[in-house]
């Protein structure tokens, strides 16, 4: 045991560190346990978990922490004393209600964490002294009250008040502890003694400590006992699982004991109490929750199979030891149904921390039963599959089974018949077929889901000949009959193609399918299908055969499958198809995945849209059960559900998975199913909005989250260029979860502190980004960038936010827009600067910062104040600085604050503006230079590489004629260099003109200057 424990120890601390780094904001600051506790719940959890484990053997990690019990003494007395502190701690933890938070040593601290940092006492001290513990538990109790769960305990003044509910769960932990303790440590010897008494103890305690409260406890305790018994019967495995969930309750029991001791009533009792084992459970739970434990190992009592059958659950808030997904899994595993939001039909609501207010309201409204985590687990452990409900469900199940059997028989019959018919000639052995073909629906009724759509389709085909006769004028019942084609859209594997074929068959049409494996270019579509009987080919040849050996009759339906797959090779295909649809005399069914695709735009107007949705699990399950039955596979319903959900209702995929599985095994249990579904998971790329929501949402960094740092970074890599921008844009919009325990001014300070950390991390990220995208391109720094720019900021400020699930969704980063605006304005400013350059020495920043404000009263203000009559004056001033009308616009646009362009432009009347434009265009203006682009004569080919020597350049020109002319031109022009650049033979005419024009202009400008 010892070595294992040690190893676990070492691993855990590391885990906590990392977690605190990314998840727990404040933990780092203080080296002492107190501080950590005060800082973040997460950090505390991890710690507590460790400590708890120490007490018990089963959780090896626990040992490390055991500082409080560094010397496990065999003597009963020692044990008792030790147990006492443990109890106290446990009690305090119980008060907190969250098993995870409670540490044997740190518990009091934990309590403090949430509410007051000052109260914290070191756990070790507690162990030694009896009196201090009392205080601690009390403090803990007071704190827990704040939380909703604790509310029950509130009423009680003492630590004893620990909620009765929790007690129920106590018993199981003691048992476990007993077993384990015997094996492991001397400390536990004492615990062993206790173990025997354990069952009695809880009751006694309750009775003694809290008489008034005792009743409910007793009842509960009984339950617990039964429960425990069952546990004992079970293998060891289940016990540990239980321990985790039950830790909370055990603590509460301990608490009570501890409190009693503190009161002075029963130290003995306290000693006797199984507090330590209970602690162990709690610790285990915490450890599991905190550390990265294998997902299968943590859970759950071994309840009876389907013990939750017929019950519907709603989960809300954060459970302390399970992540949401895991909790859902547990419920499903035992046959429960999980619903998204509570309604009157909901049986239980499993409440975690920080439940959504709307759900709480719904619970109140419907008076629903609520469970906390431990109660939920308890329910699983205790509930038998034989209740009233169970009878009902059993009947139902039997019915289902019968239905399945009959269906399977039908299937078999059909298969046999088919085999007979095909007989000896072309036997396709059913067993050699893929399951997807073998068990394909044989008629329209067998199609899972989308019944309405299939019916519509059938009706449309049914009415086809009539609508053709009427010229597609009568809309018919569904308004479909004015269309010559329908467009079926929907995700893969839900029976789109199958239903098209089946319906066609049912209505007596011959389906002709063209899919992506056929070339469907415009030409082929037009010529290939002679759909309009325009060609006499058929008559002459005797048979009406098209190029593709396709018989087109009036009872043909053309199925264009995978229309959105018409790609580059099928140029014009969609257009041609659309044209064909417009004149077609045969019904056309187009099938695609994504209705919104740009490619399908032309089809939308001419086809009736028939969107298929994913069938729900229920719809598919029975059919899959039938198939499984026929294949003699034993797959329970909830496992099938898992597969179906994992494949997002893709029936084809589930069938493929099953047929593969069948090769190796006939049965599949829940975990196998889960693993299989996971293995076949479709890799979905989330868009940045979703990722941002997830990153900043309340679950990603919560203590129960199972995502590793790598997982979190993976989100960054889904879109590494956008994620940092999105995080930066949205990181301030959350209601940080790390602030839950703060209030008032400390909260504000803490909030700003978190923001500061996040912002400086983003700033770090930008520096890393500069290295990545800088001249040296350190792409290997991308993981660091992921952490700095995305993961770390989110780890500080994650939480419920205005954006989270609300209407005020994640917003698109402004940076992109602002940056391009900046680039644009900066370019315009450069233009202004270069025009003013003949008069002004400053660079463009000087222009912006000094000249534009100085010019404003000269060239803009008069227009605002005086109006049209000032136009002359303004134009004169603009000419002074070679400013054009566009530059005037730029100058106005560059204003901020009260000189913001829209405000300024509002103050200038429209008449004045037009006047300015007109007058400016009518008059002549000095032009400092011409932009090459203005003349539209930029040579297309620019010489790359180093500038050639002039001699080289002429050499290059020699093969071309007109060299002399070129030379002349270059002599004429002031700008030799330019002409040289433009020497590409084709452009000769252009540069010459260019040069001349420019020269003229320049001369003009110079003249003007000279005049002045």
């Amino acid at each position, binding site marked *: 045991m010892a070595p294992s424990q040690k190893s676990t120890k070492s691993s855990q601390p590391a885990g906590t560190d990392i977690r605190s780094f990314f998840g727990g904001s404040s933990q780092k600051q203080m080296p002492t346990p107190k501080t950590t506790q005060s800082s973040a719940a997460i950090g505390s959890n991890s710690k507590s978990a460790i400590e708890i484990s120490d007490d018990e053997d089963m959780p090896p990690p626990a040992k490390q922490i055991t500082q409080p019990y560094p010397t496990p003494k065999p003597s009963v007395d020692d044990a008792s004393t030790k147990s006492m502190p443990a109890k106290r701690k446990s009690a305090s933890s119980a008060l907190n209600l969250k098993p995870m938070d409670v540490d044997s040593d740190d518990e009091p601290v934990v309590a403090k964490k949430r509410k007051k940092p000052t109260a914290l006492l070191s756990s070790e001290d507690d162990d030694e002294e009896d009196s201090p513990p009392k205080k601690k538990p009390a403090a803990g109790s007071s704190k827990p009250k704040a939380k909703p769960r604790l509310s029950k305990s509130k009423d009680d003044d003492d630590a004893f008040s620990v909620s009765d509910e929790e007690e129920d769960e106590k018993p199981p932990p003691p048992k476990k502890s007993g077993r384990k303790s015997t094996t492991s440590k001397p400390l536990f010897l004492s615990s062993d003694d206790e173990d025997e008494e354990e069952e009695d103890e809880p009751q006694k305690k309750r009775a003694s400590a809290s008489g008034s409260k005792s009743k409910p406890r007793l009842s509960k305790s009984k339950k617990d006992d039964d429960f425990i018994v069952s546990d004992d019967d079970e293998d060891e495995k289940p016990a540990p699982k239980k321990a985790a969930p039950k830790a909370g309750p055990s603590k509460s029991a301990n608490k009570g004991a501890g409190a009693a001791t503190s009161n002075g009533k029963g130290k003995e009792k306290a000693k006797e109490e199984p507090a330590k084992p209970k602690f162990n459970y709690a610790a285990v739970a915490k450890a599991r929750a905190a550390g990265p434990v294998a997902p299968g190992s943590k859970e759950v009592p071994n309840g009876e199979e389907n013990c939750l059958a017929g019950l519907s659950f709603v989960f809300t808030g954060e459970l302390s030891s399970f992540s949401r997904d895991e909790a859902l899994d547990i419920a499903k595993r035992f046959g429960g149904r999980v619903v998204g939001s509570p309604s009157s039909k909901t049986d239980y609501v499993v409440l975690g921390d920080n439940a959504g207010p709307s759900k709480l309201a719904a619970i109140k409204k419907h008076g629903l039963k609520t469970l906390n985590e431990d109660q939920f687990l308890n329910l699983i452990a205790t509930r038998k599959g034989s209740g009233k409900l169970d009878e009902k469900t059993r009947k139902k199940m039997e019915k289902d089974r019968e239905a399945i059997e009959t269906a399977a028989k039908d299937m078999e019959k059909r298969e046999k018949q088919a085999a007979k018919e095909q007989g000896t000639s072309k036997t396709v052995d059913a067993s050699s077929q893929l399951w997807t073909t073998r068990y394909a629906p044989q008629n329209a009724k067998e199609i899972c889901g989308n019944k309405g759509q299939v019916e519509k389709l059938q009706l449309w085909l049914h009415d086809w000949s009539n609508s053709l006769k009427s010229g597609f004028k009568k809309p018919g019942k569904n308004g479909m009959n004015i269309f010559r084609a329908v467009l079926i859209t929907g995700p893969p594997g839900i029976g789109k193609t199958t239903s098209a074929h089946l319906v066609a068959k049912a209505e007596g049409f011959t389906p002709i399918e063209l899919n992506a494996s056929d070339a469907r270019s415009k030409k082929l579509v037009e010529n290939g299908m002679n759909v309009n009987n325009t060609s006499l080919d058929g008559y002459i040849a005797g048979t009406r055969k098209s190029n593709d050996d396709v018989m087109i009759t009036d009872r043909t339906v053309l199925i264009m499958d995978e229309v959105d797959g018409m790609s580059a090779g099928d140029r014009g295909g969609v257009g041609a198809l659309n044209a064909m649809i417009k004149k077609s005399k045969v019904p056309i069914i187009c099938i695609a995945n994504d209705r919104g695709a740009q490619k399908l735009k032309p089809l939308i107007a001419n086809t009736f849209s028939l969107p298929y949705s994913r069938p729900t699990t229920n719809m598919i399950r029975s059919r899959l059960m039938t198939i499984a039955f026929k294949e003699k596979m034993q797959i329970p319903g909830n496992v099938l559900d898992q597969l179906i959900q994992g494949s997002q209702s893709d029936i084809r995929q589930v069938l493929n998975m099953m047929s593969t599985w069948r090769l190796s095994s006939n049965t599949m249990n829940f975990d196998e199913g889960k693993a299989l579904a996971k293995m076949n998971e479709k890799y979905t790329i989330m868009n940045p909005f979703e990722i941002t929501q997830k990153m900043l949402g309340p679950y990603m960094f919560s203590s129960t989250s199972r995502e590793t740092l790598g997982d979190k970074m993976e989100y960054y890599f889904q879109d590494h260029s956008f994620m940092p921008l999105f995080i*930066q844009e949205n990181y301030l919009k959350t209601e940080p979860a790390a602030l839950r325990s703060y209030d008032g001014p400390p909260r504000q300070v803490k909030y700003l502190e978190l923001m500061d950390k996040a912002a400086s991390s983003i700033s770090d990220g*930008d520096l890393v980004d500069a290295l990545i995208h800088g001249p040296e391109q350190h792409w290997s720094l991308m993981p660091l960038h992921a952490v700095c720019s995305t993961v770390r900021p989110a780890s500080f400020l994650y939480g419920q936010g205005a954006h989270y699930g609300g209407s005020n969704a994640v917003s698109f980063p*402004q940076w992109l827009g602002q940056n391009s605006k900046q680039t644009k304005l900066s370019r315009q400013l450069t233009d202004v600067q270069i025009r003013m350059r*003949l008069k002004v020495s400053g*660079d*463009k920043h000087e222009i912006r910062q000094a000249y*534009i404000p100085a010019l404003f009263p000269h060239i803009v203000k008069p227009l605002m104040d005086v109006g049209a009559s000032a136009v002359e004056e303004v134009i004169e001033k603009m000419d002074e600085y070679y400013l054009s009308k566009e530059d005037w616009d730029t100058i106005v646009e560059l204003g*901020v604050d009260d000189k913001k362009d829209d405000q300024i432009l509002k103050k200038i009347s429209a008449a004045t503006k037009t006047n300015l434009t007109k007058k400016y265009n009518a008059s002549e203006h000095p032009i400092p*230079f011409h932009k090459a682009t203005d003349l539209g004569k930029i040579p297309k080919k620019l010489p790359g590489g180093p500038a050639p020597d002039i001699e080289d350049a002429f050499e290059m020109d020699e093969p071309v004629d007109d060299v002399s002319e070129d030379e002349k031109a270059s002599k004429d022009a002031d700008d030799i260099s330019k002409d040289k650049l433009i020497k590409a033979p084709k452009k000769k005419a252009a540069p010459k003109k260019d040069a001349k024009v420019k020269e003229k202009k320049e001369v003009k400008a110079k003249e003007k200057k000279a005049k002045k």
Partner: protein
Amino acid sequence: MSLWVDKFRPRALDDLHYHHNLSARLKSLAASGDFPHMLFYGPSGAGKKTRITCTLKQLFGPGVEKLKIDQRVFLSPSKRKIEVNIVQSNFHLEITPSEAGNYDRVVIQELLKEIAQTQQVDLNAKQRFKVVIINEADSLSRDAQAALRRTMEKYMSNMRIILCANSTSRLIAPIKSRCLLMRVPAPSDEEMQTVLTHVARRAYFDLPPEAAQEIIKDANGNLRKAILVLEALKMQSPDLTGPLTIAKPDWETYCQKVATLIVTEQTPARVMEIRTKFYELLSHCIPPTVILKTVAEAVVSQVDETLKADVMHWAAFYEVRMRIGSKKIYHLEAWVVKVMSLYKQSFYSLDMSDF
């Protein structure tokens, strides 16, 4: 009818009003025939460009004042077109490579080589070399600066380079060592006063000394700003007496507003509000360092004594990051949040041990 700054700009070294020994040195350099590469540096509005132009005139005669502007197109290695404006006379040429952004190296390489390989054709020219003025030299990328090194030595016979920068700190040492460094400090108050009086005389009015003092105080050593303000004031109140209110430029008042926002409330919502304002300033071409400096100064004037040092410390801290990094807004925002956090903490007088 130009603005006074431009209208009354001194054209010859003899006309300059201050830094007389600098003028004298430039004059003798121009006369010596052994004219070195030069690096003019100093704060904006101190007269760097004016001195460069004067020196050129001293070198080549009035011909340098005949400017023309030309636009050249270069191709980046990735075949992107880069447009660069070139201001030139027959004797010199002036470029601003920072217009080309990251591709300034291409501009330097191609343009300079081309000029360097061409000899002065004008036989009447006083000097055999051409002068290339490189503006905003402190925003040259490292690559571009490296490209300059060899060119400066190799083509000394045909070309002289005059770099113009605000500070030498961003220039690599090899460049500095190849240049004669000319520091043009901001004029003192007295010097500014003489200039302002001179301008007033040229514009035919009398400038009351109080008004001049007021303007000088506002200009903070930037003579260009001082003269622009003088003209604006003259437009407002022609006699320049009585209490003068010097209108701050739009961006400056906007920065003040941001500072007030920071001090009055410290919430995430406020940070978002400030972010929008920063975006607006940035997109309207106010350099981020200027924003940070202006806002920080305004914040310092409004906060408690104990905080001032911290505010400035962090402003400096994030300014450096801003220069290194690429997305300025991140650092501006980080600074704002830091200041808010500090402010809040001092407000509740909590310990700041971990800051």
